[in-house]
């Protein structure tokens, strides 16, 4: 009896310990990456990095201002394409879709979410870059936008489904048509969640490299407008990290740190907005 209960306690403690070890391992991976980035990239973070163009190899100084602005432009284009498509189809799924069609759309979105990013890159290359005969910000943003759609779609659907049905009934009982109820009551009630989902999707695709390699390509100069190749942080990291020069490696680390910082800022800002909106509702 006591031997049995002793064994049980022992087993309980060791299982608890085992799960704790893996939980700590998960957290420490992030902190290890972060620490490593800060260690290698931190020393080169300077004002110049954010304001200067890349310098030729051998010249000291120089930054990645063009890549930072390029990433922002690419994310902007992606947002313009991904957010409306994702949000509106999420609204359709949650509010209007019949069973069969909803299942089809939802399943397709999940498949799209699983398509390797490089394949989406090839797709954008084939339908935009090849006909236009040149790389462009638009093509890169298009590829990233496609990647955003399923992420935004599914979370929009989830947030809309969480809106109590009594709200819809309340609107419709007032003689408000269905689409007006959705537009003026349901979507606003879920808006903070939807905004958070969109921003998290932006954070998620900010680090994508593969779809940009043959759509936005890269360059070492400012890229005016949206119709020319453009540098981006992930592609710069890729280029610099495999380059033969130690200065490039250091700059790649710094770019990695900046990119991670950008994603963290987006994440934290989203959560803050979300928390404030939720607090305002109460």
């Amino acid at each position, binding site marked *: 009896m006591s031997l049995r209960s002793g064994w049980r306690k022992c087993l309980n403690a060791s299982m608890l310990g085992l799960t704790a070890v893996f939980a700590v391992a998960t957290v420490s991976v992030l902190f290890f990456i972060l620490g490593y980035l800060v260690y290698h990239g931190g020393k080169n973070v300077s004002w110049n990095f954010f304001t200067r163009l890349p310098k030729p190899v051998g010249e000291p100084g120089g930054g990645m201002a063009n890549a930072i602005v390029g990433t922002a432009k690419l994310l902007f284009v992606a947002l313009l394409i991904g957010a409306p498509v994702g949000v509106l189809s999420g609204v359709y799924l949650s509010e209007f879709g019949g069973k069969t069609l909803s299942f089809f759309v939802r399943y397709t979105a999940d498949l799209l979410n699983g398509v390797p990013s490089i394949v989406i890159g090839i797709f954008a290359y084939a339908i935009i870059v090849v006909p236009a005969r040149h790389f462009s910000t638009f093509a890169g943003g298009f590829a990233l936008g496609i990647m955003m759609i399923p992420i935004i779609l599914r979370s929009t659907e989830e947030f809309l489904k969480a809106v109590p049905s009594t709200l*819809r009934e309340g609107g419709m009982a007032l003689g408000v048509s269905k689409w007006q109820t959705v537009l003026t009551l349901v979507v606003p009630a879920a808006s903070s969640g939807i905004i958070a989902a969109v921003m998290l999707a932006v954070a998620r695709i900010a680090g994508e490299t593969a779809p940009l390699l043959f759509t936005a390509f890269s360059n070492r100069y400012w890229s005016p407008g949206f119709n020319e190749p453009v540098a981006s942080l992930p592609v710069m990291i890729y280029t610099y990290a495999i380059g033969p020069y130690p200065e490039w490696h250091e700059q790649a680390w710094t770019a990695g740190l900046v990119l991670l910082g950008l994603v963290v800022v987006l994440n934290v800002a989203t959560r803050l907005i979300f928390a404030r909106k939720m607090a305002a509702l109460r």
Partner: protein
Amino acid sequence: MEKQQHLVPAYVRKGDVPTIDLATGRLNPRFTISGLKVSYGANEVLHGIDLKVFANVVTAVIGPSGCGKSTLLRSLNRMTEVVRRAHIEGKILLDDEEIARMDVVKLRRRVGMVFQRPNPFPKSIFENVAYGLRINGYKGGLSDAVEHSLRRAALWDEVKDQLQKSAYALSGGQQQRLCIARALAVDPEVLLLDEPCSALDPITTAKIEELLFQLKASCTIIIVTHNMQQAARASDFTAFLLEGQLVEYQSTSKLFTTPSDPRTEAYITGRFG
């Protein structure tokens, strides 16, 4: 006489409710329901209801859970259509118009509804009441209309200084009266209430019942309730539903004192339900 004494529940206060005889009373029917059958999928909830609901009185619909009283109420403004696969047979006339042929948006503007749980919109108190008016393109003084509706719902004095506050900051009873004000804002001819007091305390319930008395001058009121005391106190007519059938429909005082059907008697004396 002995038996009748026994039948009268203590909560029926004589004189509170008018005794209008259904056969001789001169009342205008607002809703004329004939042969109403409603089913969800294979499950038929109402098995053919015939009922005349009179204008400018309070009609209570009572019955045990699952008897179809909410479904009956929801048929009257076609909210049954919101639930998928609800199949409806029979005829419902609002005045002389068949509601199935009416534009559903117009119908619901004439027949307002208040739900079991208060469901204010996540907006300010003002916007909650103004919402229906805005959507309907109301031309005129919005703030006057909002004040008027809040006064009719006996809520104005409590909220007049905090109209811009979130409706969620109100208590449950205030929220329910806000929902009544919201429904009244579009000036409906009929107000349907689906167990409006089941989530509220007795004092708030009394306030809402008082409100119904005042409202029936301008509105026809149909209230579904679990609470027989409430039906006895607040209504002029009572319909008793059991398993999707209309068992008895009488003036409230008659139904609660001398029910003609033994099942009604059994229900109101608390032998089942």
